[in-house]
Every structure is written in C-alpha cells, then in structure tokens.
C-alpha cells in the first residue's frame, strides 16, 4: 500500500484515546479532591476502585449473571434473526409482513415489555430478561443479514447461471460467502445492545441478581461509589462482548471485502 503516514503519526493516533482517557480520569480525580465535591455528587475514581476491590466477589457474580442473560439473549436473537432473514429473502410474503414489524420494533423501547414478561414467566425467572435481550437483538441481526443476502453482485449471479448451478450450489458458492461479513457486523452491533438491554431490563423488576439490580440498590442507598463500581463491571462485560464479536467479524472477512 502506498501513501501510508509515517509510523510516528500512526502511533500518536493509536495512543490518542488512551491519553485523552487518562487525562479525563486525572482531571476527574483532581476536580473531586480539589473542588471538594461531595461523594453523592461525583465519587472520585479512587473511591470507585476501592469499592471495586472490596466488593469484587459480588461484582463478578453479578457481571456473570447479566453476562449470561446477555449471551443467551444474543444467541437466541441471532438464530431467530438470521432464520427470519433467510426466510424473508426467499419468500416475498414473509418479507412484506416482517418489514413493518421489524421497522416498528426498531423504534420502540423493548424494555417496556420487561414487567409483563416477568408476569408471564414468574418473578423469579431470568427468561423474561433474556427474552427482552433476544427481541432487541433480532432487529439489527435481521436487518444486516437480509441486506447481506441481497448483496450478491449481478456478475456473480450471471456466473452461477452461466455455470448451470443449482439453487443449492449457487447459495453455497456465492450467497452465503457474500452475506457472512454482514452477519458478523450485525452480531457486533447486537453485542453491546445485548449487554445494555440485559442490564436495563433489571431495573424493571425480577430477581435481584444482575448488575442493574445492584446499581439500583446502591443508588437508592446513596452509595454512588459502589454504584459506579458495579457500572464498571457492566462496562467490562460490554467490552468483552464487543471485543469477541469484533474478532469474529475480522476473522470472517479475511480474504473478501464486505
């Protein structure tokens, strides 16, 4: 590749967000200490880390719980989303019906369903939350997968026809490989949504096992440093999901442009 910026500049750009983040953290700590900001307004980074260390077992188990719900919801939603997209790409009627449904789902707050799902599944069940996550995930996965299935270039379509390919051969040789990068992108978009939905669904009731429940409890008790410690746990879970799906996306698009 020609015209690459000199490596010094590249390093600067790589380091920039880290540097900015550190600067913000330091400014935060200074502001709290020097400005004598009370803890209920803005806990200091050091206090948060202190709570993180103290409550590590609770935080990690809560993170696992929310993470598990997010994962289950992500998997279920992905399977349903991909399946529905395949159906919509093949059967015109399904596409016409699902179109407005998905468009509607995309703009409504799905977490609003959390309370009624708790009623339907029982207040002690995690399935309600997992369903909220699944429904949230179906939307981006469906949309991106459907787009990928329709991305086949005309010249490749002509090639398959010219080679006398059967429907199955054409699908395996061209449609699926073309759609794969889009599927992975959809999963990446869905991953952070999954974690956030899992946590937010916990505000609306149900078993007090996940990050969201603990954040609410800590906030209600005005222990904001603790609340933020749990938030950190949630952020880490979100990053793990994002990183995993990003890696999947990178692996899936080697040797072919999306």
């Amino acid at each position, binding site marked *: 590749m020609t015209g690459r910026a000199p490596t010094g500049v590249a390093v600067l750009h790589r380091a920039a967000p880290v540097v900015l983040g550190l600067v913000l953290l330091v400014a935060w700590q200074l502001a709290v200490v020097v400005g004598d900001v009370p803890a209920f307004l803005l806990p200091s980074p050091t206090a948060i880390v202190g709570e993180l260390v103290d409550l590590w077992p609770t935080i990690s188990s809560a993170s696992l719980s929310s993470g598990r719900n997010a994962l289950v919801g992500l998997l279920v939603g992905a399977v349903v989303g991909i399946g529905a997209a395949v159906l919509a790409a093949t059967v015109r009627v399904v596409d016409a019906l699902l179109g407005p449904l998905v468009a509607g789902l995309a703009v409504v707050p799905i977490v609003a369903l959390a309370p009624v799902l708790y009623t339907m599944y029982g207040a002690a069940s995690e399935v309600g939350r997992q369903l909220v996550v699944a429904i949230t995930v179906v939307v981006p996965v469906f949309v991106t997968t459907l787009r990928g299935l329709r991305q086949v270039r005309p010249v*490749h379509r002509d090639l398959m026809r*010219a*080679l*006398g390919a059967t429907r199955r051969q054409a699908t395996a040789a061209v449609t699926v490989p073309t759609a794969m990068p889009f599927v992975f992108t959809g999963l990446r978009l869905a991953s952070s949504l999954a974690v956030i939905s899992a946590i937010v669904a916990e505000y609306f009731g149900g078993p007090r096992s996940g990050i969201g429940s603990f954040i609410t409890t800590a906030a209600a008790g005005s222990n904001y440093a603790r609340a933020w410690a749990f938030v950190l746990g949630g952020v880490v879970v979100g990053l793990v999901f994002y990183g995993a799906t990003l890696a999947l996306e990178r692996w899936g698009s080697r040797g072919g442009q999306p």
Partner: protein
Amino acid sequence: MSAVAVEATGVGRTFPGRSGTSVTALEGVDLTVAAGEFVSLIGPSGCGKSTLLRLVADLDRPTSGTLTVFGRSPEQARLAHDYGIAFQQAGLLPWRTVRANIELPLSMHGVGRTARRRRASDLLALVGLTDFAEHFPDQLSGGMQQRVAIARALAEEPSLLLMDEPFGALDEMTRERLQTELVRICAETRAAVVFVTHSIPEAVFLSDRVVVMSARPGRIRDVVDVSLGRGTDRDDDLRQDAAYFDAVTRVRAALHDEAGHAVRARGAEVR
C-alpha cells in the same frame, strides 16, 4: 455435435419500459457462427451486442426469433456446459484463491479433486499465472484478474467461448498482450468464439469475421470477412501488416452509415 456453433434467425429482444414505452435492444438478427470460428460483435453503445451475447448464454430470453447453440436451445446448451463465459468485470469470487476460482466450474460439475487440481495447474500455466495460484483476487492487477477469468472460462474445454468486452477495463499494452495470448489459446483449443468489443483494432486482430451492429434498434448492419489467416499464424507483427490496416479500414467504413455520418466506436484510432 453439429458444425454450427451458434445459429440465430430473426432474433429480437424487446424490454418493456415504464408507463408503456418499450426498448428494442435487438431486432431481426440473423447470424451463423461456425465451429472453431472467431466472430467479433462490434458497434456503438446501445447496439445490442452484449444483449445478443447474453441471449446465446441463456442469461436472457429472446422475445422473437429462434436461437440455437450446437443445435440445441440455449438453455440446454447452458445446462450441458457447452460454453465458457468471461464477463467485462472479471467476476472472480473474492473469497477464493486464484486456483479455487479456476476450479469453480469443475467442482460444481462434479469433477474429482485430483483431476481438478491437474486441470487448474494446466490452465494456470496456459495463462502464465502459476506463481499466483494461492493469491486472492484483490492482490492481482486488472489484467491478471482477467487472465484468471479466461482460464476459468476454459476450465471445461468448451467448444464455444463467450466473451463480453473482457479487456475493456485494461490499458492498451496489456490489452495487446492478452489479445495475442487469447488468439493463440483459441486457435489451439479450436473453440468457437463470440467476442463483444468496442475496439476496431481488437476485433480485426482477433477475428475471422467482424459483425458490425448499429443502434436504435440494435441490428446487424454488416459482416466483414477479415481474411488474415488462421489464429495460430497471428502474432504482434500482424499489427503492422498492410492487410491488417486494410481490414481495419473496411470495418470502420462499415461502421459509418449511408449518409456518411460516423457512428462512433471507441478506440477507433489505429496507431
């Protein structure tokens, strides 16, 4: 298999347009391509040459007339893998290596692993890309991608090659080099070729006959016999030959209509 590769009688293709208007891409086309003959289709944009090629390939259906390929319908010929095709965009699958791209028709038509590899290696040698067998298309230049596409078109040793401006996106020097290679390959394999092009020199260099088409509606205006000898005799020296220039002039004249107005074709300069 009959000695006639392609026979078109009164072939026409009309496309229905929006709100009642329709476009006649082709009208009353009569053409015979003999086995082993190299025929070029040349004409200005909109004259239907690519449409005609697509009809032969059964990528589209004529709305009038009859069309046979080796005595069968185009659909039967397609399903029997009678022809190989090369498009203007190479159309290589970006997630397959060069070798895998060449092997595509073979693997889809049930050829075994060893036989596939052997054939692909032969073809790679034929087009001079043995060193790039494990590369991906995006690592290749345009000319190299087209060579892979040609190799793929030859994979099943077809008796008919259909090529739609395969060298259109390449620079002049690469074009000339690939033309020389192509005419040699086609003469060796004795395949019939229908070759769509914009370029008069290219059409003359490659073909036994040049079919000149006109636009609106697309039809055959003239057929020019390019008597420049067999394909195996054609090399770079031919481009300086007086008979070659003469043939180019005849084709160019055919591209002008009766009133002397030039129906412009691209790349019409002879250097």
